[in-house]
């Protein structure tokens, strides 16, 4: 068993590794990450995850539900640290896994992967508490500066197949039972049972009269008792190339092609404004065009912006995290963008469920990965020929919704008593 495997085992038990080992790990991680571009290309199959925020036990639950590393490929869209009590263990475990299985783990940067934010929201204090010095925090921050800003998932299938490795035995039969090539979106609970499924938009009309569908209304809440899972979805009607851009926050007025992200100089603290800041801070909203973000950084962007961007860059959708969604995930703007949130019961009290998004591998060679990396048709400025479109469908998406790990599995530090003058 190598040192790295030992470190992984130790971290899986939620025990921090020695400072010297952290230093070595961060050094290796940096060497690895520096080789990655600002936008990492990832091949399906891959499981996309949103914010973790130091909720270590929920991260373990995520691996239980989604399948363990290296059996499942993971893409984490940032915000590993802060707020939860185990930022250190969570981030170091993910980093260890990244170093151990570089091709199976993708980590991109969130707005909390920053010196300024971590000093306020807990990670700094946690490092100080667990090591007695800020060295480990400093090593981690250096790694933050090297994290990629985004990822593009290519080669995702347009057809849902039963999960290759069902989480539990009963789920195998339940997913196979419902095998249906026309299903675009499937929502499963943590046990692997189907909560909801949605057919392809173009087939939906034809199948409207079919009584065999078990759920057709996107707005109906059909989650099992206690999960409150519904997940608002509609079938894809926009561009249908199959590529998915993953970024922590969203788009920027300064970024109109994926290429522009590739040209940023990312090896720095997250700036207070500019393209890099926007990618990590912006939010989609029901507005036209661009708007002021109430967060004080980044922008709000509307459906038109997303659709333009997807169209121009030959993307079928954008996956992002950054915003708490009570149902774990939320597709917006005709499924041109989805928010994935992976911290159940955020801050141990928000009462939300979490979700991960699985994109399966395309075995049929039908997806668009050979030409959908955002550099398509550069020679004519991004215009696509009319007959290039409409041939390809958006990726089939399987969401697994899960809840917080049981309370007794974590030793929660006592909350600081707040006895101060409040008038």
């Amino acid at each position: 068993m190598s040192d790295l495997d030992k470190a992984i085992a130790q971290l899986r038990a939620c025990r921090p590794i020695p400072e010297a080992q952290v230093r070595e790990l961060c050094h290796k991680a940096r060497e690895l990450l520096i080789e990655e571009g600002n936008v990492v290309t990832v091949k399906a199959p891959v499981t996309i995850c949103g914010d973790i925020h130091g909720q270590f036990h929920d991260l373990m639950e995520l691996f239980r539900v989604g399948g363990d590393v290296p059996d499942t490929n993971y893409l984490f869209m940032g915000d590993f640290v802060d707020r939860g009590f185990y930022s250190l263990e969570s981030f170091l475990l993910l980093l260890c896994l990244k170093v151990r299985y570089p091709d199976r783990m993708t980590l991109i940067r969130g707005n909390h992967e920053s010196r300024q934010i971590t000093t306020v929201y807990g990670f700094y204090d946690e490092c100080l508490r667990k090591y007695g010095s800020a060295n480990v925090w400093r090593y981690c921050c250096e790694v933050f500066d090297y994290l990629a800003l985004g990822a593009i998932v290519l080669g995702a299938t347009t057809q849902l197949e039963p999960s290759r490795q069902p989480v539990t035995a009963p789920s195998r039969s339940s997913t196979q039972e419902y095998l249906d090539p026309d299903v675009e979106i499937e929502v499963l609970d943590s046990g692997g049972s189907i909560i909801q499924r949605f057919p392809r938009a173009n087939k939906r009309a034809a199948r409207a009269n079919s009584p065999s569908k078990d759920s057709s209304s996107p707005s109906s809440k059909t989650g099992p008792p206690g999960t409150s899972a519904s997940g608002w979805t509609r079938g894809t009607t926009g561009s249908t190339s199959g590529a998915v851009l993953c970024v922590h926050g969203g788009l920027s007025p300064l970024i109109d092609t994926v290429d522009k992200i590739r040209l940023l100089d990312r090896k720095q603290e997250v700036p207070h404004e500019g393209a890099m800041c926007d990618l990590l801070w912006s939010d989609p909203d029901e507005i036209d065009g661009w708007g002021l973000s109430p967060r004080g950084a980044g922008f709000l962007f509307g459906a038109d912006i997303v659709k333009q961007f997807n169209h121009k860059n030959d993307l079928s959708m954008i996956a992002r995290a950054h915003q708490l969604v009570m149902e774990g995930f939320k597709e917006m703007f005709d499924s041109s963008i989805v928010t994935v949130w992976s911290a159940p019961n955020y801050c141990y009290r928000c009462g939300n469920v979490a979700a991960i998004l699985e994109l399966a591998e395309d075995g049929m060679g039908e997806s668009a990965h050979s030409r959908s990396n955002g550099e398509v048709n550069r020679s004519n400025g991004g215009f696509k020929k009319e007959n290039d479109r409409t041939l390809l469908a958006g990726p089939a998406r399987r969401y697994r919704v899960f809840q917080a790990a049981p309370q007794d599995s974590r030793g929660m530090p006592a909350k600081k008593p707040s006895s101060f003058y409040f008038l």
Partner: protein
Amino acid sequence: MSDLQRQWAKSKLSSFPPPPIFNEADEDEETDNFDTGLPNDDDSSSASSASSTGTVIPSSDQRLFARPQGPPNKRSLDQIPWTTYFERELFLESVEGNCTTTHHAYLTSPVGTSPLFITHHGAGSSGLSFAVLTAEIRKRLPMAGILSIDARGHGSTTMKPEPETMDLSLDTLSADLLRVIQETKVRMGWQDLPPLLLIGHSLGGAVVTDVAKSGKLGNAVLGYAVLDVVEGSAIDALQSMQTYLSTRPLGFASLESGIDWHIRSRTIRNSLSARTSVPALLCYKEENIPRPWVWKTDLAATQPFWEGWFVGLSKKFLEARGGKLLILAGTDRLDTELTIGQMQGKYSLQVLPEAGHFLHEDLPEKTAMIIVDFYKRNDRSTLVLPPKVSDLLRAGKKIQITTESLKESAASAAVAVESYLESLPDEPGFQSALSDIARNPAGLMSLSQYLPSITSALGEGSVPASFFSNLPTGQAFSLISSVASEANALLTAPLPTGTGDDLEILKGAPKPKPRPTMPQTDTTADSVTGMATGTASTSASTSTSKAGAMETGKAIGIAAAAGAGFLGFVMAL
């Protein structure tokens, strides 16, 4: 601060009476080396405010290695009068039944279209609680106005005859605040209310949130800032309030000892603030000798109102219209509702872990920076949001139908742009960038749309050579985003043929050719920020003139935005 700004500030300040001594370092109880005789550089205060957490940055005037000569300098506990901070005080009378309330407020009028910051203090405090903060705000926004009120039962607001039980319910306090604002408007002869920013600390936060939610000030409210109060944790803390109150001294022998107590107990962790705000909290009552200085407000008696102040605060805070800013002294104060709201990006949160509950008094400089930045982001006068893409598409389609109408609108736009370009001094990067945009019909029209606001903001078209670094954020943004959305629209709307030729005639410019990059703009962008390098050089990857124009436009935008970066740090969530 840049050297230039510092110089400017120094020359400005020298024309004023000597400023009050301002050094947050003296919050540090152990190091009593505070030298009242020396004026302190303002910059040192930001560095030394962190001294409680570790690093002390020595400044040249501290004479670290000098031997102590004679008795150590005694900390000054002299009070600082309100006239140091405000232009005037107002006494505004209102009559309810047989009771006449004279509302007292401190005012510094805003100049021109500058904003008015309205501040409401917490329970047991007074309008002077914000005095040092407002001085810091005005250092950054010299034209801004401040209206700081004393709530009923607080400060110098008086009621005749004095009621037996003071009505301090939230509704009454909100109505009082509205009344004072309206009365001030009448007294000062303002036609309309200036743009308003409401700032409330603690109970005051509940009051301004209530006023913002009521919508009674209409569109004048740009935003509201709440300082260190959250419904959930406030209500939790109420249980221990009486205990806290019982530990306070009932009176002080002198004003100085009152100030001293606030500093020593770390209630207020900044002696300048304490010297300013504490005198207004105490009044002299002979019968209490030997401790004649007693609290003006009997906080224990306000207990019946406590819960009513805070119930529903989080909901109101999230629902009211306008920019929302919450500044807290610790993240553990957020309740569930605001934790969710924050993670959904519904408001801006700033945390000042080094500060105590009176964070605006403890760290006036940092708080002012955050608030000024908040104002700038919500300032409607400079902000021009980009045109909606759907509108542009619609417009684009109409134009596409008749080339005649295209020619017409392009012609008028070209005239506007042309005249604007002439009025600019020879700033090569910007000039060529603009003309590059102008070569494209849609870019031209969008540019002409924004020119009026840009021109007026720059003042009679006389642009200083340092144009890039002085361009305010709002305009930089409008430039960037107009060009960005323009580009978006262009790339989807099919272009009519022959456009280039039409424009060639109109502009008298050479026919646009695919251009690899814009050397001038690149240089400017590089000098401002390394980040722009990537974006500007992206031009190489595009080959149409449309895309070229867009690239360059963005490079200006970035350069301008980076130039505006000194405006302060945004670490908001």
